[in-house]
């Protein structure tokens, strides 16, 4: 499995999921993620798995809920408008403590918007896009390789914490082709899924998967249980990449495809002698709060770059040292709105040492 492949990001997600043991896929077509259901419809039957092209995103997330309630590794994928439809089911999965992988290859909005790469679904993904006050695990790959690696990680984290996981990509990451080095999935040491329904069998006791808690104080207790688990995520599962940050006077932060453009701009800035680094969150929830606090204890200036009008910047502001300045540069997406490295370099120059 060590040969290099040249594949699309969308295919890499599907390959990683299958390698991690995902055997159920439920989805509905939408650009720019349809390569995922196409790949799954081709490969799952060969593995004895099940592919369903559902009648809607609403149905597909609920099929995922059902399969997950049985303890199976299962996934769905979609793009922004479809993810909006899935929010009902995601909230129910969060409330029912069910794992599962949801891939969002974002496109621009609001509404029908366009099919260009966008990061305008950040709030929806990390703040609990559905009702009720919950979080899901959100991972943001910036390469085809990470699409593959993080889909495996998403399943493990999701199973360990019984929290749905979302892979938040965009049409750049999903549609681009680059080298992928596939590798074997190393099964994680995960707790048994003794909460899954299978028919009472010989257990003698029924198993119920639900999110309804009506007894006095029951729902509050349930919510505190969920929120304690979000704290555990913050303690143990934060992931980020730090690039040229050690001596940085200006810290750039960006995730996913924006981080790739930022990285190129940072290389250009370094060539000019500017001490600039990149702090790239890989987990958007849990957010790398401590990493920002630590990094801004030395470099007091942060430039947040996003493919939207400013969303992650709010979490950055909440995380940095008190005396750090946070600047923002972003462009609401659409055709022709992707910032170039030169454009970001100009921004870096602008905010470097306050110039």
């Amino acid at each position, binding site marked *: 499995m060590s040969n290099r492949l040249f594949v699309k990001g969308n295919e890499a997600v599907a390959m990683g999921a299958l390698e991690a043991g995902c055997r*159920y896929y*439920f989805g509905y077509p939408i650009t720019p993620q349809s390569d995922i259901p196409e790949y799954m419809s081709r490969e799952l039957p060969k593995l004895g798995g*099940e592919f*369903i092209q*559902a*009648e*809607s995103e*609403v*149905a*597909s997330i*609920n*099929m*995922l*809920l*059902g*399969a*997950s*309630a*049985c*303890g*199976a590794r*299962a996934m769905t994928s979609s793009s922004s408008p479809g993810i909006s439809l899935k929010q*009902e*089911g995601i909230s*129910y999965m969060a409330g*029912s403590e069910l794992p599962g992988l949801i891939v969002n290859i974002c496109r621009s909005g609001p509404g029908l918007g366009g099919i260009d790469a966008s990061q305008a679904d950040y709030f929806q993904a990390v703040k609990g896009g559905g009702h009720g006050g919950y979080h899901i695990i959100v991972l943001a790959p910036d390469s085809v390789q990470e699409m593959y690696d993080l889909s495996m990680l998403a399943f493990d984290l999701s199973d360990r914490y019984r929290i749905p996981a979302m892979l938040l990509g965009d049409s750049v990451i999903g549609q681009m082709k680059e080298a992928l080095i596939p590798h074997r999935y190393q099964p994680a040491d995960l707790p048994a899924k003794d909460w899954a*329904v*299978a*028919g*009472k*069998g*010989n257990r003698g006791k*029924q*198993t*119920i*998967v*639900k*999110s*309804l808690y009506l007894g006095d104080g029951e729902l509050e207790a349930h919510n505190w249980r969920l929120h304690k688990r979000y704290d555990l995520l913050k303690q143990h599962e934060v992931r980020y990449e730090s690039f040229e940050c050690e001596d940085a006077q200006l810290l750039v932060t960006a995730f996913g495809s924006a981080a790739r453009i930022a990285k190129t701009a940072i290389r250009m800035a370094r060539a000019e002698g500017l001490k600039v680094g990149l702090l790239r969150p890989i987990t958007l929830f849990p957010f790398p709060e401590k990493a920002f606090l630590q990094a801004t204890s030395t470099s007091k200036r942060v430039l947040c770059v996003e493919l939207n009008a400013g969303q992650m910047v709010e979490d950055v502001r909440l995380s940095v040292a008190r005396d750090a300045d946070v600047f923002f540069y972003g462009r609401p997406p659409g055709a022709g709105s992707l910032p170039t490295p030169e454009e970001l370099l100009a921004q870096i120059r602008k905010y470097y040492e306050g110039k």
Partner: protein
Amino acid sequence: MKKVFDRPVSLKDVQTHFCPGCHHGTIHRLVAEAMDHFDVQNRTIGVASVGCSVFLYGYFDIDVVEAPHGRAPAVATGVKRVHKDKIVFTYQGDGDLAAIGTSEIIHAANRGEGLTVIFVNNTTYGMTGGQMAPTTLPGQKTVTSPYGRDVGSDGYPIRMAELLANLEGTAYSVRVSVNSPKNILEAGRAIKKAFGYQVENRGFSFVEVLSACPTNWGMDALKANERVGAEMIPYFPLAVFKESDR
């Protein structure tokens, strides 16, 4: 002495929360009897919907997954695809199945999912306080059709058993009622048959059960029961609409 009548083992020995005269309790019993009949309690997974029947897991002694409003057929599809050897049923009200969940039920039936669906039609949204349902009869007063359902603006009651019988994927579709001992026996037979279809892997089976909601109809238990025969059965005929021999 031979015991001829007992609590089904699939039903817990607890009191239900249903209003006096509500038929949900009777229908629960018939479903439990069907599970007992095929001895499948230990390999059955129920999918609870949203509505007065949401506490299904409190009454049936089986594994249960709770679904969002109307989505039970999709949740059940996910369950059944994982557990092909298990018996999976949904239990849904008319608001749940014939309004918010129309898409999910039609497509689950059309895929021929190996599910059994128990559809409780009481011509109203019970749990939320008696609003107009897709099955509310013409002229019927509800809290959101205070002048009576006007088919001109509200449309017509949907006959789900007939509708689903039209789909290739449906193997068995029937409408029954539990308003008389004779009809209860008939309903019991239909529910058993619907489970039998699944036990024998013969595809999607659907039982529509006409049911009373005395509370929201503003009637006592007896009057409500009478209404089922006098007003509902004429509009929703009791019949087998499809019985596939495949």
